C-alpha cells in the first residue's frame, strides 16, 4: 500500500520521545526546559546568537557566552515525516527561531498534510522517557 493513500497517524499522541543525552555542559539547558524555557547561546564578545548553546562561542571562540531565553516562536525551515521502520510516524524539523538561529526539533499537534516550509510555529515542552522535557514545536 502506498503511504500517500493512507491517512497518517497523529505524530505526537503515541510516540514517547527518547530521553535526551545529558552531559555536564548541556545540563542547564534541560534545567531550563523543566521551567518551560528554551535557551539559546549568546556571546558578549561578538554579539552573535548560536544554537545549540555551548561554552565557547562557535563564531569568535570567546568564553564570554551566556545562555538566554528565546521567545519560543519561529518558522519551519524544513521537515520530514518518517513513515517506515518506526512504531509511530514522527516528524523531524529545523525551525528558524524569530531570533534568527535554526534548531533541530520535532513538529507535533498538526493536521496530516498541513505542514509547509515557512509556516509559523511555537514551542511546547514535551516530556521524554524518564521525565526530562525537550522543546518541540507546533503550528500557531
Amino acid at each position, binding site marked *: 500500500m502506498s503511504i500517500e493513500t493512507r491517512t497518517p497517524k497523529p505524530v505526537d499522541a503515541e510516540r514517547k520521545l527518547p530521553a535526551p543525552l545529558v552531559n555536564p555542559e548541556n545540563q542547564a539547558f534541560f534545567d531550563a526546559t523543566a521551567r518551560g524555557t528554551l535557551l539559546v547561546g549568546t556571546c558578549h564578545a561578538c554579539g552573535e546568537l548560536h544554537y545549540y548553546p555551548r561554552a565557547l562561542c562557535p563564531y569568535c571562540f570567546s568564553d564570554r557566552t551566556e545562555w538566554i531565553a528565546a521567545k519560543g516562536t519561529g518558522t519551519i525551515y524544513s*521537515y520530514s515525516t518518517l513513515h517506515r521502520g518506526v512504531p509511530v510516524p514522527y516528524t523531524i524539523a529545523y525551525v528558524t527561531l524569530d531570533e534568527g538561529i535554526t534548531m533541530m526539533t520535532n513538529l507535533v499537534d498538526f493536521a496530516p498534510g498541513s505542514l509547509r516550509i515557512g509556516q509559523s510555529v511555537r514551542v511546547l515542552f514535551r516530556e521524554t522517557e524518564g521525565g526530562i522535557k525537550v522543546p518541540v514545536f507546533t503550528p500557531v
Partner: protein
Amino acid sequence: MSLNGKAYIVGAYEHPTRKAPDKSVAQLHAESARGAMLDAGLTKNDIDGYFCAGDAPGLGPFSMVDYMGLKVRHVDSTDTGGSSYLIHVAHAAAAIAAGKCNVALITLAGRPRSEGSSGTQARNYGAAAPDAGFEFSYGLATANGYGMVAMRHMHEYGTTSEQLAWIKVAASHHAQHNPHAMLRDVVTVEEVLASPLIADPLHRLDCCVVSDGGGALIVARPEIARSLKRPLVKIRGAGEAVKGQMGGKVDLTYSGAAWSGPAAFAEAGVTPADIQYASIYDSFTITVLMQIEDLGFCKKGEGGKFVADGNLISGQGKLPFNTDGGGLCNNHPANRGGMTKVIEAVRQLRGEAHPKVQVPNCRLALAQGTGGQLGSRHGSATLIMERE
C-alpha cells in the same frame, strides 16, 4: 605541496559478497586487502602503510595490522564516515610524498545487512557527542535527515520527485550489467514514485541498499606503480571538508562538496567539464543531486533538470555516473559508500568497467564521497584521478 602526480592507485578490489552472516568483519577486511594485493601484483610484505576508518573492528589499525600480520611504518585512521576512504587515498598520497611510506593499503568492510541495520534507525553517538543532547530525542535517523535536505531543495528550487527518481533510474540501467549488484532490475520513474514513502519526500527507491561487503585500495609511489603490470591511475587532486550546522546558521541547500570540490579541481588543474566519468556518493538520490550541483557540473538549483531524462546514464547522457550501479543498486558495504566510489572510478580509468557501461577512452575521472548526514553534519571528499 601539491599531491598531483605524487602517487598512483595500483590495486582495487570490491568484495563480491552482499550478505556475509558466516564471516567476521576482520575477515572481510582481510579478504578485500588480499584481493587488492592480487590485483596490483603486490604481496603483504610490500605494504608499509595502513589506512582504515571506524568500520575496522576492535582498535582499528591496531587490531587490523595485527590480524593481517602487517608490518607498517605509517598508519592513519581518519574517520569521516563514508567519505573516509577518499580522504585515505589523499592522505596516503601525502604520506608517500613525505616519505612516510611507499605502498599504502586502505580497507573497508562491514555487515550491516546481517546485523539488521537500517536507515530509519536513530543514530546514537553517546552523551559525550556535543550535539547529541539537542538531537537524539528527536529521532534523527539517516532517511529523515536526508528527507529534510530534499524537502528544502524542492522548496528553494522547485526540484521534483520525478527528477530525483531519474537518479535511481540511471543507477538501475548500470546495475543490470553488474552480476554482483543487489538490485539488477531496470526501474522507471513511475516505479520509484510508486514505492513506499520512507521519509518525506524520499521513497524507498530513493534510498540506497543495505549490504554486507568490503573493498580495498592500494596506493603507491610512482616508481613502484610503473614497475607493476597494471594501467597507471594517477592521483591528480583531492579536497576534503566538514560541514555542519554552523552554530545555528543551518543551510541545507549545499553540502561540503562545495568546499572539497573546488580544492580538488584546483589541485588537479582541471574543470568539471573535463571530467569524463564521475562516481558520486548515492546514499539517497538527493545526495547525488546536491553534490552534482556543489561540484559545479551544473548551477546550484539546476540539478533536477541536469539529472533528468537519462543524463547520468553511460552512453546516453553527459555525465556517466556510478556505472557499477552505485549504492542505490549495487552495494553499500558497512553503510559507507566512499570505497566503492573510488573502485568503480579506477575500473573506468583502466578500461575495466563492464563493456556496456565503459566510458570510451576514459582518461579523467572524479570520485565524490560524503559521510555522516547532509541533514546535520558530514564529511565531504573529492578525488580526481587520471589514466596516464
